[in-house]
């Protein structure tokens, strides 16, 4: 009887120990399962946050780069348009000046000025035989070239011989020494061309000063 009683108790102990062992195993497995899930999620979240940060940075930088490029392009375009606009306005001044030259050449004042230009050219070329080119309209003015030659001959103390021919320009004259080959260009076009680089700056300064 005593043996049977102890045996029951022993079997009970074995079963209880096994039950406790099984519960420990299950508890540990639950803990491990939670750790696996928690670890994996944290790792995925951390990786995703790193990639998200990179993605955001890349997209933002791309958009900012595009913005800088567009604004720079726009500003350069605006600058170009301002320059073009200024150029057009300067060109309008030149066109108006040419138009007025066409009016001015019909006046007596221009005739006097042309005479002075001829005299100035003779002085520069130091007299002698000079080929003088005038445009058709100015040739028709019938300037007293003999008187001019005589006056400058006296002034320069040497003979002045003017040979006149026709040139194609707006106004003014071209004179060339037959002796030296030196030529002076006092045509409106020639003067403008020579002076334009500096004159353009002056015109722009004057035109765009508030």
């Amino acid at each position, binding site marked *: 009887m005593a*043996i049977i009683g102890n*045996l029951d108790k*022993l*079997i009970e102990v*074995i*079963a209880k120990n*096994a*039950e406790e*062992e*099984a519960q420990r*195993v*299950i508890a540990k*497995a639950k803990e491990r*399962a939670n750790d*696996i*899930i928690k670890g*994996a*999620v944290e*790792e*995925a979240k951390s990786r*995703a*946050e790193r990639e*998200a*940060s990179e*993605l*955001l940075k890349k*997209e*933002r930088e*791309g*958009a900012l780069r*595009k*913005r800088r490029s*567009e604004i720079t392009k*726009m*500003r350069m375009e*605006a600058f170009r*348009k*301002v320059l073009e*606009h*200024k150029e057009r*306005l*300067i060109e309008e*001044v*030149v066109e*108006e*000046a040419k138009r*007025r030259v066409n009016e001015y050449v019909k006046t007596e004042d221009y005739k006097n*000025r042309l005479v002075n230009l001829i005299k100035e*050219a003779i002085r520069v070329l130091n007299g002698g035989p000079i080929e003088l080119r005038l445009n058709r309209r100015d040739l028709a003015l019938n300037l007293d070239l003999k008187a001019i030659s005589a006056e400058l001959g006296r002034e320069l103390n040497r003979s002045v011989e003017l040979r006149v021919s026709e040139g194609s320009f707006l106004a*003014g004259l071209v004179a060339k020494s037959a002796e030296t080959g030196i030529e*002076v260009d*006092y045509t*409106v076009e020639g*003067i*403008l061309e020579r*002076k334009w680089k500096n004159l353009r700056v002056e*015109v722009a300064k*004057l*035109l*765009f000063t508030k």
Partner: protein
Amino acid sequence: MDEVVTRLLEAERAARKLVDDAYNEAKRMEAEAKAKADDLSKKVYEEVIEGARKLAADEVKRIEEETLEEVKKVEEDLKKELENLKRTALKNFESAVKLVLDEVFKP
């Protein structure tokens, strides 16, 4: 005596089975946890990335809107500058023409 041994062996066998079952259950739980971890990880990853994509799209849109505003301002400034130039040039037009004419007839 045989009965005692038999009952002890049975008890041992039952205990071993209980523990073995527990280990098997633990393995199943681990496998299940790994599968669940994979699913959850993907979901969390996608959520975060999707959120970032949306945030980035909003940010890009904001920058694009600012760019448009700035472009508009550059255009408006240009328009004003061209108008000012025209107005100033008109005011000084006569003087500029006179300057050119003076230079043209001054060898």
